[in-house]
């Protein structure tokens, strides 16, 4: 019977395409918007993810997310180092600097100051130069996207200079860095150098990066740091989530995307449900005939559900495929953040399932109540 259901469905080309269109519409919109949302969220945490190595971030009690800098006294580093269970701890500077380019124009930059001795937090991948070159005077490493932003259409070249806080900075390397929310260029330098590039402030230490001693849980070390220093200490993963949650809570981002996703869901349900219903009504005599000839209600039910499942699978495949193509396309343009983790696929799949279930249920009532005697009427 299921192949009959399939043939009935596909045989009615216009209605079939209408139903599939509804599902594709919903799947595309949901997957695409959710992926952009995930992309934006990942932008907010790329700065944390790029700092590999230390498992613990120490910071001011009031800090709510990675861009929320509340400078500490330099002495906090030594207090953290003194906490039992801390294997090592280093300074990390993060701030916004204003750079004056050779041409006389100004650019905002994200300035990262790495511990002079260890360079913890240095970029993992360099296109040009080497990390060791950071030890040269005035040396900075800049990310490739930032380079292109400030010097568009110019070839990558080491040795270019600009000024921050009236001090000369020399580009010694080109790094790969995760994109950020602001997409300002990212400039890496030594901590001692960063302090000079930064706008003068009484306190400059942004974060203390630390690692738990072997055999001690990072969470436990965080707890001890908080207890002994009065700082806030979180694991890397906790900081990622803290940042994501901050953006979700304090910005309209989830609401905006949520509205679009819901819109896709409801419009898709309406189109698919409506067309499916019309399709069923159009075929109601055929269902009546099948019933007269001895098809049970259960058989009819599975036929309609199978039809729903079929359009669901096709619509899901096409919709998610289109969303992926879209993502691939904007990735080339690198304008829009797009990140499609499996969770997006699962959520979209669940939404599509609900849509086709609703669409089928609307029709199922119709076919279940149809009297087989309907077929005798001319």
């Amino acid at each position, binding site marked *: 019977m299921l192949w009959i259901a399939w043939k009935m469905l596909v045989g009615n080309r216009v209605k079939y395409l209408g139903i599939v269109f509804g599902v594709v519409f919903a799947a595309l919109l949901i997957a695409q918007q959710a992926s952009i949302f995930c992309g934006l969220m990942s932008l907010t945490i790329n700065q944390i993810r790029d700092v590999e190595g230390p498992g613990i971030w120490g910071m001011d009690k009031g800090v709510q997310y990675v861009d929320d800098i509340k400078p500490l006294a330099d002495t906090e580093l030594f207090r953290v180092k003194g906490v039992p269970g801390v294997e090592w701890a280093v300074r990390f500077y993060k701030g916004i600097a204003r750079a004056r380019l050779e041409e006389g124009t100004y650019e905002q930059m994200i300035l990262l100051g790495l511990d002079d001795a260890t360079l913890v937090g240095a970029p993992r991948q360099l296109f040009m130069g080497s990390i060791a070159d950071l030890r040269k005077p005035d040396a900075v490493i800049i990310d490739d996207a930032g380079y292109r932003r400030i010097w568009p259409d110019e070839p990558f070249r080491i040795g270019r200079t600009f000024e921050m806080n009236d001090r000369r900075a020399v580009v010694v390397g080109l790094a790969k860095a995760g994109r950020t929310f602001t997409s300002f260029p990212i400039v890496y330098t030594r901590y001692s150098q960063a302090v000079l590039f930064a706008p003068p402030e009484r306190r400059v230490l942004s974060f203390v990066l630390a690692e738990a001693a072997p055999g001690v849980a990072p969470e436990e070390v965080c707890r001890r740091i908080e207890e002994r220093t009065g700082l806030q200490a979180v694991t890397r993963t906790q900081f990622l989530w803290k940042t994501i949650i901050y953006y979700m809570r304090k910005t309209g981002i989830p609401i905006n995307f949520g509205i679009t996703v819901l819109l896709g869901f409801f419009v898709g349900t309406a189109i698919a449900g409506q067309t499916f219903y019309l399709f069923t009504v159009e075929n109601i005599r055929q269902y009546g005939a099948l019933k007269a000839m001895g*098809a049970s209600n259960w058989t009819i039910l599975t036929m309609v559900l199978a039809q729903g499942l079929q359009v669901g699978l096709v619509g899901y495949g096409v919709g998610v495929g289109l969303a992926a193509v879209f993502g691939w396309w904007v990735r080339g343009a690198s304008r829009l953040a797009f990140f499609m983790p499996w969770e997006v696929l699962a959520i979209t799949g669940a939404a599509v399932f609900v849509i086709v279930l609703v669409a089928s249920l609307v029709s199922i009532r119709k076919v279940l109540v149809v009297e087989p*005697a309907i077929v005798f009427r001319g």
Partner: protein
Amino acid sequence: MGAVTAATIPTTPPAADVAVHVRGVTKDFGSGGTTTRALRGVDLDVPYGELLMLVGPSGCGKTTLVSIIAGTLDPTEGDVVVLGEDLAAMPNGRKVRFRRDNVGFVFQAYNLLPALTAAENAAVPLIIAGWNRRRSVEAAADVLDQLGMGDRLDRLPSELSGGQQQRVAIARSLVHSPRLLICDEPTSALDAENGRITMDLIREVAVQPGRAVIVVTHDARVYSYADRIASMEDGRIEAVVAATRSAAAGAG
């Protein structure tokens, strides 16, 4: 078969050679103050091996009566025993299986599935009965072949004439060898020629010793194909008469 008028049939249990046994059947449509009484006490027997025609003016209750006999509609009152089974007492699920196994239908509007080929359409009762697709389509093709449709097995209904569609419908009604065949106005959508061909086929293929055929019709041109003709009027059977079957019609 001799002519038996409704009035002379006594209210006794059905005889063994009676395929359809209807006693005192009434049917009301609607509820409350707006009920229509479509049947007002129908008595009817149809023996095996007979083609009974049900005739009468529009709205007199012919379709309602055959729907009840086929088990697609419940009577309001009365006894309906078909093929030895008491339909009035039968729960719905069993009635569905009863129809699947025992009843073939030919509808006025053909009611073929537009997306299926002729052979697939004719195979539907077997598929409902749980046969696999290949075997049932093969069996249906055999029946279509007998009906002179062997060269149109893969056509869609939209590619067939009305008479050809009705032949597919007849193949469908017989493919599972039902013991009761119900035809409601099988010729009224057809021209005289196709009407005659259709009735020839029904007469020739469907009328068998172990099977009863009921044909509802308005079409006086086909009366000659009946063994007996039951005339209905206003929800009752007025008379049942033996038909004077012409030799031409009987030969098909």
